[in-house]
């Protein structure tokens, strides 16, 4: 029986790279990778050589030069003598602001529309279907422009508020809705505990954090008591007090007052101005992406089998608790992953801001700076880097959340 021997142990031969199935796929992958790398090298080299031939070079020194232009919405200190880098930062913060706001409202719109679309009420469900189909089937740029156009055409200009027989007036003498934006009263502290306004607001935030911890402790205490005695103590008043008392005390001590907007010269001044471009862009992005999220939510809810709902009802749970305790936690697993891409879409679509004159990073770094300095490749590379970083960060945060709600197998 010595005929059954191992195959002769030959050394590695070059032909085995093609003929031996163990190596073949590896061979082709290596070849493909080399070809790809060569292509990229060729194109990159071509670019560099052509740039050199045209007398252009890649340089980022322009970022330190004074920008020379003004920006209408600034979240940090900026004037026309600040550097291009600072202008890019202002734009970046504006992008992040509108993306953040739009992500929140789009989620609210989406969840409401998605749940209502499954309603048994024929009118409500059909209305939601119409909303979804209209908004997700028209490009977002068109929505941004039309919302902005309607806003500027319908709302009165600041001039209409002037004179004895003004055609427009402020709501409650505190809010002014104009076609340049909405002016709201600004809270400020008469005798703040710190010299800087930001520190005072941080203190208020700190107060909220303390309240949250206190409310949490009350819940822990109530749970312990319930487990020990079977009776849950009434906590509503205590939690309310934990939230309100520190807040009201802080406001009283620091002397909260409101600064109301008033018509001065060409515009309203005082108060906080929420610019028209920001509102139009924010609303358009929210309502457009909300339509997509609504479909995700509907898909998520429908993915939970009917048996779950029926079983929960059979146990005597009321419809609201069925939704909150049984359906939604399971639906979230289906909803979250596509929700991530919707958030990424909001961030990327916010680059359409220039259509309504909103100074996001595409408008400052990729628009005015690019144009004034002529450094197109440098600016576009920076923009790509920024959007990539922002998107990957959002993706990462949402994936952490996704990991916390996904099915845990034990």
């Amino acid at each position, binding site marked *: 029986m010595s005929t059954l021997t191992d195959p002769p142990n030959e050394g590695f031969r070059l032909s085995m790279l093609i003929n031996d199935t163990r190596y073949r796929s590896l061979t082709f992958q290596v070849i493909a990778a080399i070809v*790809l790398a060569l*292509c*990229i090298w060729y*194109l*990159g080299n*071509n*670019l560099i050589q*052509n*740039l050199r*031939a*045209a*007398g*252009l070079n890649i340089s980022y020194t322009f970022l330190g030069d004074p920008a*020379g*232009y*003004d*920006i*209408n919405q600034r979240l940090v200190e900026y*004037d*026309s*003598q600040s550097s291009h880098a600072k202008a890019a930062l202002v734009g970046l913060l504006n992008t992040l602001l509108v993306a953040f706001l739009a992500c929140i409202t789009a989620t609210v719109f989406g969840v409401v529309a998605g749940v209502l679309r499954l309603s048994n009420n024929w009118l409500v469900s059909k209305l939601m279907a119409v909303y979804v189909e209209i908004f997700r089937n028209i490009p977002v740029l068109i929505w941004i422009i039309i919302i902005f*156009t309607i806003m*500027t*055409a319908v709302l*009165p*200009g*600041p*001039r209409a508020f002037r004179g004895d027989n003004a055609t427009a007036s402020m709501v409650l003498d505190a809010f002014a809705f104009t*076609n*340049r934006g909405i002016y709201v009263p600004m809270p400020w502290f008469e005798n703040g505990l710190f010299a800087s306004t930001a520190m005072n607001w941080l203190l208020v935030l700190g107060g909220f954090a303390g309240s949250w911890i206190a409310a949490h402790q009350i819940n822990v205490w109530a749970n312990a008591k319930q487990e020990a005695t079977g009776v849950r103590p009434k906590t509503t008043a205590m939690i309310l007090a934990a939230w309100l008392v520190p807040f009201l005390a802080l406001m009283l001590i620091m002397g909260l007052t409101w600064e109301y907007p008033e018509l*001065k*010269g*060409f*515009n309203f*001044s005082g108060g906080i101005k929420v610019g*028209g*471009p920001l509102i139009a862009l924010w609303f358009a992005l929210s309502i457009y992406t909300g339509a997509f999220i609504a479909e995700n939510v509907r898909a998520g809810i429908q993915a939970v089998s009917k048996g779950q709902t029926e079983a929960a009802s059979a146990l005597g749970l009321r419809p609201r608790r069925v939704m909150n305790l049984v359906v939604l936690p399971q639906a979230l697993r289906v909803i979250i992953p596509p929700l991530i891409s919707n958030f990424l879409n909001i961030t990327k679509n916010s680059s359409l801001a*220039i*259509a309504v*004159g909103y*100074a996001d990073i595409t*408008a400052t770094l990729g*628009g*005015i700076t*690019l*144009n*004034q*300095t*002529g450094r*197109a*490749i440098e600016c576009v590379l920076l923009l790509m880097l920024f959007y990539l970083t922002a998107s990957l960060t959002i993706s990462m945060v949402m994936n952490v959340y996704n990991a916390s709600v996904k099915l845990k197998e034990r």
Partner: protein
Amino acid sequence: MKKSVILGAMTFAGLAAGAASAGTLDDVKARGKLNCGVTTGLVGFAAPNANGEWEGFDVAVCRAVAAAVLGDSSAVEFVPTTGKTRFTALASGEIDMLARNTTWTFSRDVDLKFEFVGVNYYDGQGFMVPKELGVSSAKELDGATVCIQTGTTTELNLADFFRSNNISYEPVPIETNAEAQQQYLAGACDVYTTDASGLAATRATFDDPAGHVILPEIISKEPLGPLVRHGDHEWGDVVRWSLMALIAAEELGVTSANLSEMAAGTENPEINRLLGTEGTLGEMLGLSADWGKNAIAAQGNYGEIFAKNIGEDTPVGLARGLNAQWTEGGLLYAPPFR
């Protein structure tokens, strides 16, 4: 992912390859068509008429160059560009020349690697406000909201003007003239600022032009002119001298009416050289001998083009002012044709 990297790199390489190609004159001749960058629409300077044909002051320069090079003033492909896209379009080779009321500045000439071939309109930045505001000087504009066309020299001048006068304003950046016009008319901004010629052209399209005033302050020098890519000097010469031919023609009294008569030969040797009946100027440029005659035949001489598109008898209604011939107290001065 891999695919998008390749595509991105190819785009860059494509852009760069376009920029590196030389011999625009040969390219245009081979193509039989001139690609000329113009605005997306500014009445009087460049806008399509009711028949969809482009016409205007800047368009006339494109047509003159096409006539000089190809002998056909209609052999032009007009490429509308915004303030933002124009330089990329020219640098990438998408267009052969840009005639889009573009201000000649040091950094554009030197740093952006372009070649301004001359000035076809001496302009300056101004402000337009509704009459009902009762503003009579730009220095009274403290706190005003100002619409600006983004990607132009105007936003820099504006920042400088308000800073040096120590007054504040709120800028509203707008992509195109049409959108700026709509925002201004809706009252979303108090003031519209751009080159004074552009303001006049925009105002001409309003329902009620008399309800808007252009403030007296001119806050900048804006020499507007056609430009080409840096480095292709033969092509730069063709565009430069086509423009100069139009200006010289007005100075020498050559008009579209008497052109054929003059082209038969005159007593004035400079006219003869300009129209190609004497000397070899066309050959030196690499063009036919009658290039100058063709350029002038396209739309007439500089004065005729001005009067027809933006002059005082048109809705735009601009006076010659600085743009008169040097013999009449203006700045237009064509170098000698010899």
